Protein backbone atom coordinates (compact mmCIF):
# COMPACT_ATOMS: atom_id res chain seq x y z
CA UNK A 1 0.00 0.00 0.00
CA UNK A 2 1.47 3.34 -0.91
CA UNK A 3 0.34 6.90 -0.34
CA UNK A 4 1.18 9.21 -3.26
CA UNK A 5 4.00 6.83 -4.07
CA UNK A 6 5.48 6.73 -0.57
CA UNK A 7 5.32 3.89 1.96
CA UNK A 8 3.04 4.69 4.92
CA UNK A 9 5.82 3.97 7.44
CA UNK A 10 7.89 6.74 5.91
CA UNK A 11 5.01 9.20 6.11
CA UNK A 12 4.11 8.20 9.66
CA UNK A 13 7.76 8.42 10.65
CA UNK A 14 7.96 11.96 9.35
CA UNK A 15 4.66 12.86 11.01
CA UNK A 16 6.18 11.67 14.27
CA UNK A 17 9.30 13.77 13.73
CA UNK A 18 6.97 16.61 12.83
CA UNK A 19 5.10 16.14 16.11
CA UNK A 20 8.37 16.21 18.01
CA UNK A 21 9.52 19.43 16.39
CA UNK A 22 5.96 20.67 16.74
CA UNK A 23 6.13 19.99 20.48
CA UNK A 24 8.92 22.52 20.78
CA UNK A 25 7.21 24.97 18.45
CA UNK A 26 4.03 24.69 20.52
CA UNK A 27 5.68 25.10 23.93
CA UNK A 28 7.81 28.02 22.81
CA UNK A 29 5.05 29.82 20.94
CA UNK A 30 2.71 29.33 23.89
CA UNK A 31 5.22 31.17 26.08
CA UNK A 32 5.63 33.91 23.49
CA UNK A 33 1.86 34.26 23.09
CA UNK A 34 1.38 34.63 26.85
CA UNK A 35 4.09 37.27 27.05
CA UNK A 36 2.81 39.16 24.03
CA UNK A 37 -0.82 38.80 25.07
CA UNK A 38 -0.38 40.36 28.49
CA UNK A 39 2.77 42.44 28.32
CA UNK A 40 2.50 43.44 24.67
CA UNK A 41 6.20 42.67 24.47
CA UNK A 42 7.62 40.79 21.49
CA UNK A 43 10.04 38.68 23.51
CA UNK A 44 13.07 38.28 21.28
CA UNK A 45 14.92 36.82 24.25
CA UNK A 46 12.75 33.68 24.09
CA UNK A 47 15.32 31.66 22.14
CA UNK A 48 18.01 32.64 24.63
CA UNK A 49 15.76 31.55 27.52
CA UNK A 50 15.26 28.19 25.79
CA UNK A 51 19.02 27.86 25.44
CA UNK A 52 19.47 28.76 29.12
CA UNK A 53 17.05 25.95 29.98
CA UNK A 54 19.09 23.43 28.00
CA UNK A 55 22.31 24.64 29.62
CA UNK A 56 20.71 24.55 33.07
CA UNK A 57 19.84 20.91 32.37
CA UNK A 58 23.42 20.21 31.33
CA UNK A 59 24.76 21.98 34.43
CA UNK A 60 22.43 20.02 36.70
CA UNK A 61 23.82 16.84 35.21
CA UNK A 62 27.50 17.78 34.78
CA UNK A 63 28.05 19.98 37.85
CA UNK A 64 25.49 18.73 40.36
CA UNK A 65 25.47 15.11 39.28
CA UNK A 66 21.67 15.01 39.42
CA UNK A 67 19.43 13.08 37.07
CA UNK A 68 17.16 14.16 34.24
CA UNK A 69 14.08 14.47 36.47
CA UNK A 70 15.87 16.92 38.75
CA UNK A 71 16.86 18.94 35.69
CA UNK A 72 13.25 18.89 34.49
CA UNK A 73 12.25 20.69 37.68
CA UNK A 74 15.30 22.87 38.30
CA UNK A 75 15.82 24.31 34.82
CA UNK A 76 12.36 25.89 34.34
CA UNK A 77 12.55 27.30 37.87
CA UNK A 78 15.99 28.77 37.24
CA UNK A 79 15.01 30.27 33.89
CA UNK A 80 11.76 31.53 35.41
CA UNK A 81 13.73 33.26 38.15
CA UNK A 82 15.98 34.86 35.57
CA UNK A 83 12.85 35.97 33.73
CA UNK A 84 11.64 37.64 36.92
CA UNK A 85 14.88 39.62 37.14
CA UNK A 86 14.59 40.69 33.50
CA UNK A 87 10.98 41.75 33.95
CA UNK A 88 11.53 43.74 37.13
CA UNK A 89 14.83 45.31 36.11
CA UNK A 90 14.18 46.11 32.46
CA UNK A 91 10.76 45.38 30.99
CA UNK A 92 8.77 47.28 33.60
CA UNK A 93 10.30 50.55 32.44
CA UNK A 94 9.19 50.19 28.84
CA UNK A 95 5.59 48.89 29.02
CA UNK A 96 4.10 52.29 28.34
CA UNK A 97 6.28 52.78 25.26
CA UNK A 98 5.83 51.60 21.67
CA UNK A 99 6.06 47.82 21.02
CA UNK A 100 9.31 48.40 19.19
CA UNK A 101 11.18 49.17 22.42
CA UNK A 102 10.20 45.80 23.86
CA UNK A 103 11.51 44.08 20.76
CA UNK A 104 14.77 46.04 20.80
CA UNK A 105 15.30 45.52 24.52
CA UNK A 106 14.68 41.78 24.44
CA UNK A 107 16.77 41.47 21.28
CA UNK A 108 19.63 43.15 23.12
CA UNK A 109 19.16 40.87 26.11
CA UNK A 110 19.25 37.86 23.78
CA UNK A 111 22.53 39.00 22.25
CA UNK A 112 23.93 39.61 25.71
CA UNK A 113 22.98 36.18 27.01
CA UNK A 114 24.14 34.32 23.93
CA UNK A 115 27.43 36.22 23.90
CA UNK A 116 28.09 35.43 27.54
CA UNK A 117 27.30 31.76 27.14
CA UNK A 118 29.53 31.55 24.10
CA UNK A 119 32.31 33.17 26.11
CA UNK A 120 31.86 30.83 29.07
CA UNK A 121 31.13 27.56 27.27
CA UNK A 122 32.46 27.91 23.73
CA UNK A 123 30.49 27.30 20.58
CA UNK A 124 30.80 23.50 20.56
CA UNK A 125 27.93 21.37 21.81
CA UNK A 126 27.69 19.98 25.34
CA UNK A 127 26.86 16.32 25.78
CA UNK A 128 23.61 15.38 27.46
CA UNK A 129 22.65 11.76 27.83
CA UNK A 130 19.12 10.51 27.39
CA UNK A 131 17.83 9.23 30.71
CA UNK A 132 18.07 5.41 30.96
CA UNK A 133 14.36 4.86 31.43
CA UNK A 134 13.81 6.30 27.98
CA UNK A 135 16.37 4.25 26.09
CA UNK A 136 14.82 2.09 23.45
CA UNK A 137 11.67 2.22 21.42
CA UNK A 138 7.97 1.58 21.57
CA UNK A 139 6.86 -0.53 18.65
CA UNK A 140 3.26 0.45 17.90
CA UNK A 141 3.06 -1.79 14.84
CA UNK A 142 2.35 0.89 12.25
CA UNK A 143 5.12 3.16 13.51
CA UNK A 144 8.20 2.91 15.70
CA UNK A 145 8.44 5.58 18.44
CA UNK A 146 11.76 6.13 20.19
CA UNK A 147 10.82 6.27 23.88
CA UNK A 148 12.35 9.63 24.69
CA UNK A 149 10.79 11.32 21.71
CA UNK A 150 7.42 9.88 22.60
CA UNK A 151 7.89 11.29 26.09
CA UNK A 152 8.69 14.73 24.66
CA UNK A 153 5.44 14.78 22.68
CA UNK A 154 3.41 13.61 25.68
CA UNK A 155 5.10 16.01 28.10
CA UNK A 156 4.54 18.97 25.81
CA UNK A 157 0.88 18.04 25.19
CA UNK A 158 0.25 17.77 28.92
CA UNK A 159 2.05 21.05 29.63
CA UNK A 160 0.26 22.96 26.86
CA UNK A 161 -3.09 21.67 28.04
CA UNK A 162 -2.35 22.49 31.69
CA UNK A 163 -1.25 26.04 30.88
CA UNK A 164 -4.21 26.58 28.55
CA UNK A 165 -6.60 25.44 31.28
CA UNK A 166 -4.86 27.68 33.80
CA UNK A 167 -5.33 30.78 31.69
CA UNK A 168 -8.65 30.09 30.01
CA UNK A 169 -10.53 28.37 32.81
CA UNK A 170 -9.36 29.65 36.16
CA UNK A 171 -9.91 32.81 38.18
CA UNK A 172 -6.26 33.74 37.98
CA UNK A 173 -6.44 33.28 34.24
CA UNK A 174 -9.44 35.60 34.00
CA UNK A 175 -7.49 38.27 35.93
CA UNK A 176 -4.67 37.88 33.40
CA UNK A 177 -7.05 38.12 30.44
CA UNK A 178 -8.84 41.14 31.89
CA UNK A 179 -5.54 42.86 32.67
CA UNK A 180 -4.65 42.52 28.98
CA UNK A 181 -7.66 44.65 28.11
CA UNK A 182 -7.73 47.21 30.89
CA UNK A 183 -4.96 47.01 33.47
CA UNK A 184 -5.98 50.23 35.29
CA UNK A 185 -9.50 48.97 35.94
CA UNK A 186 -8.31 45.55 37.08
CA UNK A 187 -6.05 47.38 39.52
CA UNK A 188 -9.08 49.32 40.80
CA UNK A 189 -10.68 46.00 41.71
CA UNK A 190 -7.86 45.39 44.17
CA UNK A 191 -5.77 43.08 41.99
CA UNK A 192 -2.01 43.61 41.92
CA UNK A 193 -1.53 43.93 38.17
CA UNK A 194 2.20 44.48 38.48
CA UNK A 195 2.49 41.06 40.12
CA UNK A 196 0.35 39.56 37.34
CA UNK A 197 2.54 40.93 34.57
CA UNK A 198 5.68 39.66 36.30
CA UNK A 199 4.03 36.24 36.67
CA UNK A 200 3.15 36.18 32.98
CA UNK A 201 6.74 36.78 32.00
CA UNK A 202 7.99 34.21 34.51
CA UNK A 203 5.51 31.65 33.14
CA UNK A 204 6.62 32.32 29.56
CA UNK A 205 10.27 32.06 30.57
CA UNK A 206 9.67 28.83 32.50
CA UNK A 207 7.98 27.33 29.44
CA UNK A 208 11.04 28.26 27.38
CA UNK A 209 13.27 26.75 30.04
CA UNK A 210 11.21 23.55 30.04
CA UNK A 211 11.53 23.33 26.25
CA UNK A 212 15.28 23.64 26.68
CA UNK A 213 15.47 20.71 29.11
CA UNK A 214 13.34 18.54 26.83
CA UNK A 215 15.57 19.51 23.91
CA UNK A 216 18.88 18.70 25.61
CA UNK A 217 18.94 14.95 24.87
CA UNK A 218 17.77 15.43 21.26
CA UNK A 219 19.36 18.57 19.91
CA UNK A 220 22.86 19.87 20.46
CA UNK A 221 23.24 22.00 23.58
CA UNK A 222 25.04 25.05 22.21
CA UNK A 223 24.77 28.80 22.91
CA UNK A 224 23.29 29.34 19.46
CA UNK A 225 20.55 26.71 19.64
CA UNK A 226 17.94 29.35 20.35
CA UNK A 227 18.75 31.69 17.47
CA UNK A 228 17.92 29.07 14.86
CA UNK A 229 14.63 28.24 16.51
CA UNK A 230 13.31 31.69 17.46
CA UNK A 231 12.49 32.84 13.94
CA UNK A 232 10.45 29.72 13.26
CA UNK A 233 8.62 30.19 16.55
CA UNK A 234 7.75 33.78 15.61
CA UNK A 235 6.33 32.55 12.32
CA UNK A 236 4.20 30.06 14.27
CA UNK A 237 2.88 32.72 16.64
CA UNK A 238 2.05 35.12 13.82
CA UNK A 239 0.27 32.40 11.87
CA UNK A 240 -1.67 31.22 14.89
CA UNK A 241 -2.73 34.72 15.85
CA UNK A 242 -0.74 37.01 18.15
CA UNK A 243 -1.88 36.57 21.72
CA UNK A 244 -4.06 33.52 21.02
CA UNK A 245 -2.98 30.62 23.21
CA UNK A 246 -4.93 27.92 21.42
CA UNK A 247 -3.66 29.39 18.16
CA UNK A 248 -0.06 29.06 19.31
CA UNK A 249 -0.50 25.46 20.45
CA UNK A 250 -2.45 24.15 17.48
CA UNK A 251 -0.33 26.01 14.93
CA UNK A 252 2.83 24.80 16.68
CA UNK A 253 1.97 21.14 16.26
CA UNK A 254 0.42 21.77 12.87
CA UNK A 255 3.48 23.52 11.45
CA UNK A 256 5.70 20.75 12.81
CA UNK A 257 3.65 18.14 10.99
CA UNK A 258 3.51 20.20 7.80
CA UNK A 259 7.30 20.59 7.91
CA UNK A 260 7.66 16.83 8.46
CA UNK A 261 5.39 15.93 5.57
CA UNK A 262 7.16 18.41 3.28
CA UNK A 263 10.37 16.51 3.95
CA UNK A 264 8.72 13.44 2.39
CA UNK A 265 7.03 15.02 -0.60
CA UNK A 266 9.26 17.96 -1.46
CA UNK A 267 12.39 17.96 0.73
CA UNK A 268 13.93 21.03 -0.86
CA UNK A 269 11.12 23.17 0.51
CA UNK A 270 11.15 21.81 4.06
CA UNK A 271 13.19 24.60 5.58
CA UNK A 272 10.98 27.35 4.14
CA UNK A 273 7.52 25.78 4.16
CA UNK A 274 6.66 27.28 7.56
CA UNK A 275 7.38 30.76 6.27
CA UNK A 276 5.37 30.09 3.12
CA UNK A 277 2.42 29.09 5.29
CA UNK A 278 2.88 32.25 7.35
CA UNK A 279 3.02 34.42 4.24
CA UNK A 280 -0.17 32.83 2.90
CA UNK A 281 -1.91 33.33 6.24
CA UNK A 282 -0.95 36.97 6.34
CA UNK A 283 -2.34 37.44 2.85
CA UNK A 284 -5.60 35.60 3.45
CA UNK A 285 -6.28 36.25 7.13
CA UNK A 286 -3.88 38.77 8.63
CA UNK A 287 -5.11 38.31 12.17
CA UNK A 288 -3.91 34.72 12.07
CA UNK A 289 -5.78 31.46 12.41
CA UNK A 290 -7.23 32.17 15.84
CA UNK A 291 -6.46 35.83 16.14
CA UNK A 292 -9.10 38.45 16.70
CA UNK A 293 -9.44 41.15 14.07
CA UNK A 294 -7.93 44.26 15.65
Amino acid at each position, binding site marked *: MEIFGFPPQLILGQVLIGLINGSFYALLSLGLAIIFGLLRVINFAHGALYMMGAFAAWMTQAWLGLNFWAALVIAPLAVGLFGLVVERAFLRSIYHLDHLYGLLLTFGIALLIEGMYRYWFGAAGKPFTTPDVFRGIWDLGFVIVPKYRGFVVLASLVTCLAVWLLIERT*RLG*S*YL*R*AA*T*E*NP*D*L*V*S*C*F*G*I*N*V*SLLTASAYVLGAALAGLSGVLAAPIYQVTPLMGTNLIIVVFAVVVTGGMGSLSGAIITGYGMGVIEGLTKVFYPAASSVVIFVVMALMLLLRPAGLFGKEA
Partner: protein
Amino acid sequence: MPDPVLSVTDLHAWYGESHVLHGVTLDLKEGETLAILGRNGAGKTSTLRAIMGVIPRRSGSVKIHGRETIRQKSHAIARLGLAYVPEERGIFASLTAQENLLLPPVISPGGLAIEEIYELFPNLAERRNSPGTRLSGGEQQMLAIARVLRAGGRTIFLDEPTEGLAPVIVERIAEVVAMLKTRGYSMLLVEQNLAFAQAVADRTCVMEHGHIIETFTAADADSHAASLQNHLGV
Protein backbone atom coordinates in the same frame (compact mmCIF):
# COMPACT_ATOMS: atom_id res chain seq x y z
CA MET B 1 -18.30 63.32 64.72
CA PRO B 2 -17.12 60.21 62.86
CA ASP B 3 -14.33 60.62 60.30
CA PRO B 4 -15.58 61.27 56.80
CA VAL B 5 -15.28 58.18 54.64
CA LEU B 6 -13.21 60.17 52.17
CA SER B 7 -11.25 63.33 52.85
CA VAL B 8 -9.43 64.95 49.94
CA THR B 9 -7.26 68.01 50.59
CA ASP B 10 -5.45 70.08 47.97
CA LEU B 11 -5.21 67.23 45.48
CA HIS B 12 -3.07 67.99 42.43
CA ALA B 13 -2.58 65.58 39.55
CA TRP B 14 -0.64 65.49 36.31
CA TYR B 15 -0.93 63.43 33.11
CA GLY B 16 2.69 63.75 32.05
CA GLU B 17 3.26 67.47 31.72
CA SER B 18 -0.43 68.32 31.78
CA HIS B 19 -1.59 69.62 35.18
CA VAL B 20 -5.19 68.41 35.38
CA LEU B 21 -6.16 68.91 39.01
CA HIS B 22 -5.32 72.19 40.72
CA GLY B 23 -5.94 71.55 44.38
CA VAL B 24 -9.22 69.66 44.78
CA THR B 25 -10.65 69.66 48.28
CA LEU B 26 -13.77 67.72 49.18
CA ASP B 27 -15.05 65.24 51.68
CA LEU B 28 -17.62 62.49 51.62
CA LYS B 29 -19.45 61.52 54.80
CA GLU B 30 -20.62 58.03 55.65
CA GLY B 31 -23.89 57.23 53.87
CA GLU B 32 -23.82 60.47 51.89
CA THR B 33 -24.20 60.92 48.14
CA LEU B 34 -22.01 63.72 46.79
CA ALA B 35 -22.48 64.80 43.20
CA ILE B 36 -19.66 66.39 41.21
CA LEU B 37 -20.90 68.49 38.33
CA GLY B 38 -18.96 70.34 35.68
CA ARG B 39 -18.33 70.74 32.01
CA ASN B 40 -16.33 68.30 29.91
CA GLY B 41 -12.68 68.71 30.74
CA ALA B 42 -13.36 70.23 34.14
CA GLY B 43 -11.51 67.40 35.86
CA LYS B 44 -14.37 65.32 37.26
CA THR B 45 -13.19 61.94 35.98
CA SER B 46 -9.60 62.88 36.77
CA THR B 47 -10.65 63.50 40.36
CA LEU B 48 -12.07 60.00 40.69
CA ARG B 49 -9.04 58.48 38.99
CA ALA B 50 -6.67 60.46 41.18
CA ILE B 51 -8.43 59.32 44.37
CA MET B 52 -8.29 55.70 43.13
CA GLY B 53 -4.56 56.12 42.54
CA VAL B 54 -4.75 55.41 38.84
CA ILE B 55 -3.07 58.70 37.94
CA PRO B 56 0.49 58.05 39.01
CA ARG B 57 1.60 61.61 39.58
CA ARG B 58 -0.37 63.31 42.32
CA SER B 59 0.21 65.35 45.42
CA GLY B 60 -1.85 66.50 48.37
CA SER B 61 -3.80 64.36 50.77
CA VAL B 62 -6.36 61.64 50.20
CA LYS B 63 -7.60 60.02 53.41
CA ILE B 64 -9.87 57.01 53.25
CA HIS B 65 -11.46 56.10 56.59
CA GLY B 66 -8.81 58.33 58.14
CA ARG B 67 -5.86 56.56 56.44
CA GLU B 68 -3.53 58.57 54.23
CA THR B 69 -3.31 56.97 50.77
CA ILE B 70 -1.50 59.52 48.62
CA ARG B 71 1.58 57.28 48.39
CA GLN B 72 -0.33 54.04 47.80
CA LYS B 73 -0.94 51.99 44.66
CA SER B 74 -4.44 51.66 43.26
CA HIS B 75 -4.90 48.00 44.15
CA ALA B 76 -4.14 48.75 47.81
CA ILE B 77 -6.46 51.78 47.77
CA ALA B 78 -9.31 49.74 46.28
CA ARG B 79 -9.01 47.22 49.07
CA LEU B 80 -9.83 49.91 51.62
CA GLY B 81 -13.42 49.53 50.48
CA LEU B 82 -13.72 51.59 47.30
CA ALA B 83 -15.84 50.48 44.36
CA TYR B 84 -15.17 52.10 40.99
CA VAL B 85 -17.72 52.19 38.16
CA PRO B 86 -15.82 53.92 35.35
CA GLU B 87 -17.18 56.22 32.68
CA GLU B 88 -16.58 53.78 29.85
CA ARG B 89 -18.08 50.99 31.99
CA GLY B 90 -15.05 48.77 31.41
CA ILE B 91 -16.85 45.55 30.51
CA PHE B 92 -14.24 43.06 29.34
CA ALA B 93 -14.82 41.80 25.82
CA SER B 94 -12.96 38.53 26.33
CA LEU B 95 -15.18 37.53 29.28
CA THR B 96 -18.88 36.59 29.46
CA ALA B 97 -21.32 38.69 31.47
CA GLN B 98 -21.11 36.26 34.40
CA GLU B 99 -17.30 36.14 34.24
CA ASN B 100 -17.30 39.94 34.27
CA LEU B 101 -19.61 39.86 37.27
CA LEU B 102 -17.39 37.43 39.16
CA LEU B 103 -14.12 39.09 38.23
CA PRO B 104 -13.58 41.66 41.01
CA PRO B 105 -12.42 39.79 44.10
CA VAL B 106 -14.44 40.24 47.29
CA ILE B 107 -12.61 42.97 49.18
CA SER B 108 -15.00 43.51 52.06
CA PRO B 109 -17.57 41.30 53.75
CA GLY B 110 -21.17 42.29 53.23
CA GLY B 111 -21.14 42.33 49.46
CA LEU B 112 -24.27 41.15 47.69
CA ALA B 113 -24.56 37.45 46.86
CA ILE B 114 -24.98 36.35 43.25
CA GLU B 115 -28.63 35.41 43.80
CA GLU B 116 -29.39 38.85 45.25
CA ILE B 117 -27.68 40.49 42.30
CA TYR B 118 -29.63 38.48 39.76
CA GLU B 119 -32.84 39.38 41.63
CA LEU B 120 -31.97 43.05 41.42
CA PHE B 121 -30.84 42.85 37.81
CA PRO B 122 -32.88 40.07 36.16
CA ASN B 123 -31.73 40.92 32.64
CA LEU B 124 -28.15 40.19 33.70
CA ALA B 125 -29.25 36.71 34.74
CA GLU B 126 -30.72 36.14 31.29
CA ARG B 127 -27.59 37.34 29.50
CA ARG B 128 -25.09 35.70 31.81
CA ASN B 129 -23.32 33.68 29.13
CA SER B 130 -23.18 36.38 26.49
CA PRO B 131 -19.77 37.87 25.76
CA GLY B 132 -19.46 41.13 27.69
CA THR B 133 -19.61 43.44 24.74
CA ARG B 134 -22.78 41.89 23.30
CA LEU B 135 -24.76 43.49 26.11
CA SER B 136 -26.59 46.74 25.45
CA GLY B 137 -25.33 50.00 26.94
CA GLY B 138 -27.86 49.84 29.73
CA GLU B 139 -27.06 46.22 30.53
CA GLN B 140 -23.34 46.98 30.56
CA GLN B 141 -23.97 49.83 33.00
CA MET B 142 -25.98 47.52 35.26
CA LEU B 143 -23.21 44.93 35.05
CA ALA B 144 -20.55 47.50 35.92
CA ILE B 145 -22.54 48.44 39.03
CA ALA B 146 -23.49 44.86 39.91
CA ARG B 147 -19.95 43.56 39.91
CA VAL B 148 -18.68 46.12 42.42
CA LEU B 149 -21.69 45.45 44.64
CA ARG B 150 -20.63 41.80 44.79
CA ALA B 151 -17.10 42.79 45.77
CA GLY B 152 -18.36 44.50 48.90
CA GLY B 153 -16.92 48.00 48.69
CA ARG B 154 -19.24 50.41 50.55
CA THR B 155 -17.94 53.60 48.95
CA ILE B 156 -18.96 53.72 45.30
CA PHE B 157 -17.57 56.01 42.62
CA LEU B 158 -20.05 56.37 39.76
CA ASP B 159 -18.68 58.13 36.69
CA GLU B 160 -21.50 59.37 34.44
CA PRO B 161 -23.68 56.29 34.92
CA THR B 162 -26.47 57.67 32.74
CA GLU B 163 -24.38 58.81 29.80
CA GLY B 164 -25.81 57.73 26.46
CA LEU B 165 -28.68 55.75 27.97
CA ALA B 166 -32.38 55.88 27.15
CA PRO B 167 -34.66 57.63 29.69
CA VAL B 168 -36.26 54.36 30.76
CA ILE B 169 -32.84 52.91 31.62
CA VAL B 170 -31.87 56.10 33.42
CA GLU B 171 -35.01 55.60 35.57
CA ARG B 172 -33.81 52.10 36.41
CA ILE B 173 -30.37 53.35 37.39
CA ALA B 174 -31.94 56.05 39.54
CA GLU B 175 -33.88 53.27 41.32
CA VAL B 176 -30.65 51.33 41.90
CA VAL B 177 -28.86 54.39 43.28
CA ALA B 178 -31.82 55.17 45.56
CA MET B 179 -31.74 51.57 46.83
CA LEU B 180 -28.02 51.86 47.53
CA LYS B 181 -28.66 55.07 49.47
CA THR B 182 -31.21 53.39 51.70
CA ARG B 183 -28.70 50.62 52.36
CA GLY B 184 -26.21 53.17 53.59
CA TYR B 185 -23.64 53.16 50.78
CA SER B 186 -21.52 56.30 50.43
CA MET B 187 -21.42 57.53 46.84
CA LEU B 188 -19.41 59.96 44.78
CA LEU B 189 -21.40 60.65 41.65
CA VAL B 190 -19.92 62.40 38.63
CA GLU B 191 -22.70 63.53 36.32
CA GLN B 192 -23.56 65.87 33.50
CA ASN B 193 -27.24 65.00 33.75
CA LEU B 194 -28.30 67.74 36.15
CA ALA B 195 -31.77 66.39 36.85
CA PHE B 196 -30.47 62.92 37.71
CA ALA B 197 -27.77 64.31 39.99
CA GLN B 198 -30.17 66.64 41.84
CA ALA B 199 -32.62 63.80 42.37
CA VAL B 200 -30.13 61.66 44.29
CA ALA B 201 -27.46 63.95 45.72
CA ASP B 202 -27.33 65.09 49.35
CA ARG B 203 -24.68 67.62 48.46
CA THR B 204 -23.36 68.86 45.15
CA CYS B 205 -20.06 70.40 44.17
CA VAL B 206 -19.18 72.09 40.91
CA MET B 207 -15.79 71.73 39.25
CA GLU B 208 -14.11 73.98 36.79
CA HIS B 209 -10.53 73.95 35.52
CA GLY B 210 -9.43 71.24 37.90
CA HIS B 211 -10.76 72.59 41.17
CA ILE B 212 -14.03 72.87 43.06
CA ILE B 213 -15.62 76.28 42.78
CA GLU B 214 -18.70 75.79 44.90
CA THR B 215 -20.45 73.27 47.08
CA PHE B 216 -24.06 73.29 48.24
CA THR B 217 -26.56 70.98 49.87
CA ALA B 218 -29.74 69.60 48.31
CA ALA B 219 -31.79 72.09 50.30
CA ASP B 220 -29.98 75.02 48.69
CA ALA B 221 -30.14 73.58 45.18
CA ASP B 222 -32.81 75.99 43.92
CA SER B 223 -30.92 79.12 44.89
CA HIS B 224 -27.89 77.80 43.03
CA ALA B 225 -29.78 76.88 39.86
CA ALA B 226 -28.82 80.04 38.03
CA SER B 227 -25.12 79.81 38.78
CA LEU B 228 -25.23 76.13 37.83
CA GLN B 229 -26.65 76.97 34.42
CA ASN B 230 -23.83 79.44 34.08
CA HIS B 231 -21.08 76.98 34.90
CA LEU B 232 -22.50 73.98 33.08
CA GLY B 233 -23.85 75.77 30.04
CA VAL B 234 -21.90 75.55 26.84
